[in-house]
């Protein structure tokens, strides 16, 4: 008995260091978000395996197999709901984790590679979520996937090729389902697994979580201090997910009907910020130029000297906190303002001949000028550090995207017109 307990401890110590710095144990440093992501991934693997036993990946039987699952298989509905809720929570948790990393200065030297792996993990997560979205082959799935694969077509040069590759042909059909199924159950989970292990290992190599006091901080033993805390967060989360899955069902609409797009047709919530962009910006810019710019900036940012906040302190300093609050407020106001302005004033004057310029190049130029001006204002005039300015910029981007998501989820009704959430009835 003793020896078996020893071996469990040893196993844990293969994954964790023997002791961890006391200051990193504080819940409010990391909010346990990384651990939550692992827990949810675990739940997803388990429920995914169960679902795989019932689901049939062909256009004829996919929908009916999901119906069988929810109606006849004991606990089938619950298992599907758990999978659904874990997946959605995982996206939210991963995004919050990203935000936490930005706000506590956890992407500086020594953690650069891990930042990049983290971004790759985020992309994989979104891909996993989205490929899973198609599998039930209902109206929701069919049209969301139609839209998203059509987006690929706007990528210059290889767009059409990519689109045909993902669809497995020119139209959405059996090959598309097969592609998404393979991506969802084999390719993405495999890559996720490898990258996650690498991610954890790099955290450990960088000396654990970011911490404020460098040098000889107090340390506490991993077993039990860290493991207990991890278990507490993990189990609470599992309980929460199971509860959510009992109360709210995962959506399932009618079977896919290629002839009729439901009105409104919305993307899954984590893409609705993006969808809101598509309403305002020329598709080439919304689909290609902006994501490319955003991606390059995100990848490059840790390599800009002094771009990371002092590690382990939220917002870097009290001044940083104030800047962050103002940024968030300004971001919220600006997003709503611009959306209203564009819908009420700008887009009403017919279609300008040159949307590629008026709705592509011009907004992009304005954005770049604004970004440079705001950076100069913060650093030159207000004497913020570069790290604080970068933090404010990234935070602004996150706030704007989340506000677009809020608008997309709650304020867009039939025909994608702006409506009040209570006017469009139950969500």
């Amino acid at each position: 008995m003793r020896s078996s307990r020893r071996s469990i401890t040893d196993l844990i110590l293969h994954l964790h260091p023997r002791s961890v710095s006391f200051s990193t144990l504080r819940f409010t440093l990391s909010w346990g978000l990384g651990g939550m992501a692992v827990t949810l991934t675990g739940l997803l693997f388990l429920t995914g395996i169960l679902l795989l036993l019932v689901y049939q990946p062909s256009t004829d039987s996919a929908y009916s197999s999901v119906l069988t699952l929810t109606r006849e298989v004991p606990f089938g509905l619950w298992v599907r709901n758990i999978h659904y809720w874990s997946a959605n929570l995982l996206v939210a948790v991963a995004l919050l984790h990203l935000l936490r990393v930005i706000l506590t200065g956890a992407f500086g030297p020594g953690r650069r590679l891990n930042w990049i792996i983290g971004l790759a993990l985020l992309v994989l997560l979104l891909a996993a979520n989205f490929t899973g979205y198609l599998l039930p082959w209902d109206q929701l799935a069919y049209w969301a996937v139609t839209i998203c694969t059509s987006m690929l077509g706007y990528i210059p040069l290889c767009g059409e090729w990519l689109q045909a590759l993902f669809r497995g042909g020119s139209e959405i059909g059996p090959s598309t389902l097969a592609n998404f199924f393979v991506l969802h159950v084999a390719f993405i989970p495999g890559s996720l697994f490898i990258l996650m292990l690498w991610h954890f290992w790099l955290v450990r190599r960088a000396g654990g979580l970011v911490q404020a006091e460098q040098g000889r901080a107090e340390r506490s033993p991993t077993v039990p201090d860290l493991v207990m805390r991890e278990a507490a967060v993990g189990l609470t989360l599992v309980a929460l997910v199971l509860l959510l899955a009992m109360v709210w069902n995962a959506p399932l609409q009618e079977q896919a009907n290629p002839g009729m797009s439901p009105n409104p047709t919305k993307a899954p919530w984590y893409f609705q910020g993006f969808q809101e962009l598509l309403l305002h910006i020329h598709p080439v810019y919304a689909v290609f130029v902006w994501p490319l710019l955003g991606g390059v900036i995100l990848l490059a940012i840790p390599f800009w000297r002094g771009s990371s906040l002092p590690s382990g302190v939220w917002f870097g300093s009290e001044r940083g906190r104030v800047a962050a609050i103002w940024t968030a407020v300004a971001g919220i106001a600006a997003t709503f303002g611009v959306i209203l302005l564009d819908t009420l004033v700008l887009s009403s004057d017919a279609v300008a001949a040159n949307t590629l310029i008026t709705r592509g190049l011009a907004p992009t130029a304005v954005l770049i000028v604004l970004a440079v001006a705001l950076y100069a204002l913060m650093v030159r005039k207000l004497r913020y550090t570069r790290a604080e300015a970068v933090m404010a910029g990234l935070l602004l981007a996150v706030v704007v995207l989340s506000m677009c998501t809020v608008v997309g989820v709650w304020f867009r009704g039939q025909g994608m017109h702006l409506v009040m959430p209570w006017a469009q009835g139950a969500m």
Partner: protein
Amino acid sequence: MKENSSTETATPTSAPTRRRFLNWAWAFFGLAAVTELGWLGVSFLNFRKDRSTPARAKSIITAGPVDMFEPATVTAIPQGQLYLARLEDGGFLALSRTCTHLGCSLRWDEEQGKFICPCHGSSYNAAGEVLTAPAPRPLDCYPVRIENGIVKVDIAAPQKRQCFEPGQVTRV
């Protein structure tokens, strides 16, 4: 590497060349393997791509006699997944029902007299021209033929167009 050292000391002059040769061989075989795998993958995927693009044996569909369509109306032709528009001047235009923005399927709104996309709110007039963005170009159209007073549409491939031109309309 350890084991090699003994043979290397035996023939000190040939060892570096042999090692270099072996390294080259490794690189060569590695590249060959990668190329083969890539080729395999691409041909595999291409085959599926071709096969699932339906070879429409019957690419010409019959919409109906000319008199069936009043001027200034739009009629859905379900078997071709398209709309047949008869313009005010009596010309025919076969329009794809797929929105040129991101591929949702359009609905003809009789009251407002325009195509409305449920996805991002694009709208088009009866000739398929964009009325409201974000759609970037007019609806794709299919070639229309009129034989013995019967309207026929060739649905083999939709034709992209940048703007509406009178040449796209088939007259009786």
